[in-house]
C-alpha cells in the first residue's frame, strides 16, 4: 500500500513529524492516505545505509573507511599531477581487472592447459592478437558505461526493443548457465586434487558464493574479488618452478607459425572463445556504471581495462608454459585441468600440483561468484525488473529468485552422478558462439550512435579496428559452431 495524491487535487500540505510521513490533501481532507510501511518510526534500512547519518557511523566504526574518505579527499585536492594520477587509478581500478581475470575461469584454464599439453608453445603467439581484440572490445564497453551511465542490456533494450532483448537474454542466460556449471565442476575438480569429496566442496562453495552477494555490498564484494585476482600469481610461480627454456619461449613469440591443420585450428578457436565471452561485456559495463566513474576520469577506466587484459594474458601464458614444459615434453595426454594438475606431480613436484589446483579452485570460485550475479543483473535490467544487491527480497523477488536458481541449479547438477556434462558444455559453447556476434554488432551500433555517445563515438581508425576485430571474432566463432555440429 502506498499513499496517493491526485495531481489535480489542489494544494498539498505535508505534515511531517520527524519520523513519519503523513500527507493530507486539503481538497480531500477526509481521505487520509497513510502508508503502513512508511510510517515506521525509523527510516527504511536503505535510507539508513545510504543516507548521511550512516557516513558518520562508518567513520567511527571502521577506521579504514575514514582513512579512505580522507585519502580520496587528499587525492582530489593534490596538486602534484603524478600522485594524483596514480592515486586516482587506485581508487577507480577494479572493473576491468576483475572482468579480465574472471576470464581465466575453469573453462579458460582447461583450454590453456590442453593447448600447452598438446601443442607445446606452438600456439602461444595467438595470445597477443587475442589480447588486442579483448582490449578493443572491453574498451568500448567501458566507454559506453562511463558516458551513458547505463548497462549494456539497458542500452540494447532502449535501442533495439523488447523482442530482441528478450531472446538475447534467454541466450545469454543459457550460455552463462553452462559456464556456471563448468565453474562448479572446476571447484569439484580442484578440491579432488587435495582429496576433498565433491559432495562436501561444491555445496559449501555454492553456499558461500550465495551468501557473499546476498549479505555483502558492492564495495566489500569488489575487494574480495580484487584479492582473488592476486592468487592467480600461483600460476606464475608454477611457471617459474618448472624452469622453462626462456630462449625458446621468446623465439615462439617472434616466429608465430600458423598451420591450418583442423585440430590445431579447433584449439585456436577454443582459446579465442574462452577469452572473449558475451557475459564479460555486460559485466564490465555494469560494474563501471555501479562504480559511478565520471567522464573526466574515463582514462583511468581505460587503463584499468588495458591493464586487466594484459594481466590475464600473462597468466594464460604461464598456464600454457607450465603444461608445455612438462606435459608436452614428456608426451603426457590430458583431458581436463584436473589431469593437468595431477600429471604435474611426477614431472615437476607435488607443490606444482598443489599450486596448479589452488589456482583452479580460486579461478572457479571467483567466476562462480561473478557469473550468476552478472547474469541476474542482465536478466532483470533487460526485462525491467527491480535489481540490486542492496534491495530486500520482497522488493526484488525476480532478482534474488534468478540468482539463487542459477547457483543452486549449477551446483546441484554437478552433484548429480551421471550427468552428461561434456555434451552440455559443448552446447553452451555453441550458444556462446551464436550470441557473441549479435552482441558485438549491437555494441558497434550503440557506440557509433551520436545521440547516445555524443562526442565519445568511435573515431574512424578505431572503428575500422573494432569492426575488423568483431568480424574476425564472428568468423572464428561461426567456425567453432560449424565444427561442433
Amino acid at each position: 500500500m502506498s499513499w496517493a495524491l491526485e495531481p489535480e487535487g489542489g494544494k498539498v500540505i505535508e505534515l511531517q513529524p520527524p519520523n513519519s510521513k503523513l500527507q493530507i490533501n486539503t481538497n480531500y481532507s477526509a481521505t487520509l492516505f497513510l502508508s503502513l510501511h512508511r510510517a515506521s518510526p525509523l527510516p527504511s534500512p536503505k535510507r539508513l545505509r545510504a543516507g548521511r547519518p550512516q557516513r558518520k557511523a562508518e567513520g567511527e566504526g571502521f577506521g579504514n573507511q575514514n582513512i579512505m574518505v580522507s585519502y580520496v579527499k587528499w587525492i582530489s585536492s593534490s596538486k602534484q599531477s603524478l600522485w594524483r594520477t596514480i592515486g586516482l587509478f587506485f581508487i577507480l581500478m577494479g572493473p576491468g581487472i576483475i572482468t579480465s581475470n574472471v576470464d581465466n575461469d575453469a573453462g579458460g584454464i582447461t583450454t590453456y592447459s590442453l593447448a600447452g599439453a598438446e601443442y607445446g608453445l606452438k600456439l602461444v603467439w595467438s595470445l597477443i592478437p587475442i589480447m588486442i581484440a579483448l582490449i578493443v572490445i572491453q574498451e568500448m564497453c567501458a566507454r559506453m558505461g562511463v558516458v551513458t551511465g547505463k548497462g549494456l542490456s539497458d542500452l540494447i533494450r532502449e535501442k533495439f526493443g523488447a523482442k530482441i532483448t528478450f531472446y538475447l537474454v534467454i541466450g545469454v542466460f543459457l550460455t552463462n548457465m553452462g559456464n556456471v556449471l563448468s565453474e562448479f565442476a572446476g571447484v569439484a575438480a580442484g578440491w579432488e586434487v587435495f582429496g576433498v569429496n565433491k559432495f562436501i566442496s561444491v555445496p559449501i562453495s555454492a553456499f558461500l558464493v550465495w551468501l557473499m552477494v546476498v549479505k555483502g555490498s558492492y564495495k566489500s564484494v569488489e575487494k574480495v574479488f580484487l584479492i582473488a585476482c592476486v592468487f592467480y600469481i600461483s600460476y606464475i610461480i608454477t611457471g617459474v618452478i618448472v624452469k622453462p627454456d626462456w630462449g625458446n619461449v621468446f623465439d615462439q613469440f617472434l616466429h608465430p607459425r600458423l598451420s591450418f591443420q583442423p585440430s590445431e585450428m579447433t584449439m585456436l578457436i577454443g582459446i579465442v572463445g574462452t577469452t572473449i565471452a558475451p557475459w564479460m561485456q555486460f559485466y564490465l559495463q555494469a560494474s563501471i556504471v555501479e562504480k559511478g566513474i565520471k567522464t573526466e576520469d574515463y582514462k583511468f577506466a581505460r587503463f584499468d581495462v588495458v591493464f586487466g587484459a594484459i594481466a590475464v594474458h600473462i597468466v594464460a601464458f604461464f598456464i600454457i608454459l607450465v603444461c608445455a614444459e612438462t606435459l608436452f615434453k614428456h608426451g603426457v595426454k590430458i583431458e581436463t585441468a584436473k589431469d593437468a594438475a595431477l600429471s604435474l606431480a611426477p614431472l615437476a613436484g607435488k607443490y606444482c600440483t598443489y599450486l596448479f589446483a589452488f589456482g583452479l579452485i580460486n579461478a572457479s570460485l571467483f567466476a562462480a561468484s561473478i557469473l550468476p550475479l552478472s547474469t541476474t543483473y542482465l536478466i532483470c535490467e533487460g526485462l525491467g525488473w527491480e535489481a540490486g544487491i542492496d534491495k530486500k527480497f520482497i522488493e526484488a523477488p525476480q532478482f534474488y529468485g534468478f540468482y539463487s536458481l542459477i547457483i543452486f541449479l549449477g551446483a546441484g547438477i554437478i552433484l548429480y552422478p551421471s550427468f552428461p556434462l561434456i555434451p552440455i558444455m559443448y552446447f553452451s559453447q555453441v550458444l556462446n558462439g551464436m550470441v557473441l556476434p549479435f552482441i558485438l554488432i549491437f555494441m558497434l551500433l550503440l557506440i557509433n550512435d551520436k545521440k547516445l555517445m555524443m562526442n565519445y563515438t568511435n573515431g574512424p581508425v578505431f572503428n575500422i579496428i573494432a569492426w575488423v576485430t568483431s568480424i574476425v571474432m564472428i568468423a572464428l566463432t561461426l567456425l567453432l559452431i560449424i565444427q561442433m555440429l
Partner: protein
Amino acid sequence: MDQGLKEFYFFSEFLNRRVFDTTGLKVGKISDLVAERAEPYPMIIGVVVRTRGRKMFIPWEKIIQIEPRFALSETELIDLKSPLPEKDIILLREEVMDKQIVDTFGAKVVRVNDLHFLRVDSRLRLVHVDVGFRGLMRRVGWEKLVDQALRWFFSYVLPNQFISWKYVQLLSGSDLLHLSVSQKKLSHLHPADLADIIEDLSGRDRSAIFHALDTETAAEAMEEIDPKIQKAIMETIPLEKASDIVEEMSPSDAADLLGDLPEERAEEILEGMEQEKAEDLRELLVHPDETAGGLMTTAYLSLTSSVTVETAIARLKAGAPNLDIMDYIFILDEAEILQGVVSIRDLLTAHPHQPLAEIQPSRVVSVKVDEDQNEVVEAFAKYGFRALPVVDEEGHLRGVISFRSVLGIGT
C-alpha cells in the same frame, strides 16, 4: 469517419503493422505513433510509416480504416522532419517505449513494456503504460501462449500492470525541457521518494531532472540523496543552479554536502550564495563531521526573554519556511549566551501576553560544540528532546542539532 476501431489498443498491435493504400497496395510498415504533448491523456495525432527506408508522417485524418486492415486515403506522405515541432509532439516509440519512466504514484522507476490506448469517438488517447510481465510477453508475441499455460497449470490469470498516464513522468531530456506541467508530477513526490528515484537513475537522467526541478524541490530531494551521488550531481549542474540549491537546503545538510566537495568548487558555490547564508555555512564547515558542531544547523529561532508568547508565536510563523528547528525557541541574553529553551508546547499552553522569561524552565540542557557524536546520541536518548542546543566554552549558542541528524549514528 468510421475506421472500425476497437475499444482498446496496445502499442504492440500497431508496431510493424502493414499499411495499405486504397487500391490495396502495401505502402510500408508502422514504425512509430505520434501523440500530442498534452495532459492528462494525450491524443494520437498520427503514425510514422517506414516506406522504402524513409520515415514518413501520416496524420490521423488520412487513415480511412484500421480494422480489419490499415488503409490510407492518399499516399502523398509528409516527410517526418518538416511539419512537426518537437515541443508539441511525443514520438511514442522513440521517447516512451522500452524507456525508464518515473511512476509518481508508486514512487519508483520502471521500464515501459507496452502502451495502452482508449478509443474516444474516432480518436485514440494514450491512457496507460504497461509495465508488467504480460505486456512484455505481448511484445515478444507470447502473450496467448503464456497466458494459456498459466491458466492451465496454475489457474492463474496473468494480470496487466498499468500505470495511468497522468502519473507517468518521462525521463527523456526533451520531455523534461518542454513540458513545465509535467515537472509538477515530480514535485508531488515526497522528497525522500524523489531522492530514491534519483539515486536509481543514470548520471545523465539525474542532471536532466535537476535542471527541470524547481529549486525548492531540488533542495529538498538533495538533502535526502546519498552523499556520493550528491557530490556527483553537484559537479555536473551549472554553478548558479548549485548555489541556489545549496542556499535552499537546511544548513546542516548543506554544510555536509559542501564538506564533501573539492575545496575550490565549494568556495565557488559559497560565493554565488547570499552573503548571510554563506557565512553561516562557512562557520558550520569548520567543525569536524563526528562532533556536535558537525551535526548542528543554524536555522533555528532565538529570542530574548522579554518577548511575549504572542510575539514569539508570530515570529515562529513568519520564520517557518526557513527554519530547520520548529519545535523549540532558544532564549539568549544580550551577549548571545543561552539562557533557556521554550518548546512549542509551552508556547501553545501559555497565556499570550506572558513574557518568555516566565515560562522558560530553570535548567537548560546543552552540549559543547566539540562533544563527540556518541555523547550527543546519549543526550538525545536520555532526555528525549527533538533538538539539542550546542554551545561553546563561554555558553554562547552556536547551533542546534535536530534529532533527525543523529538517526543512524551508532547503528
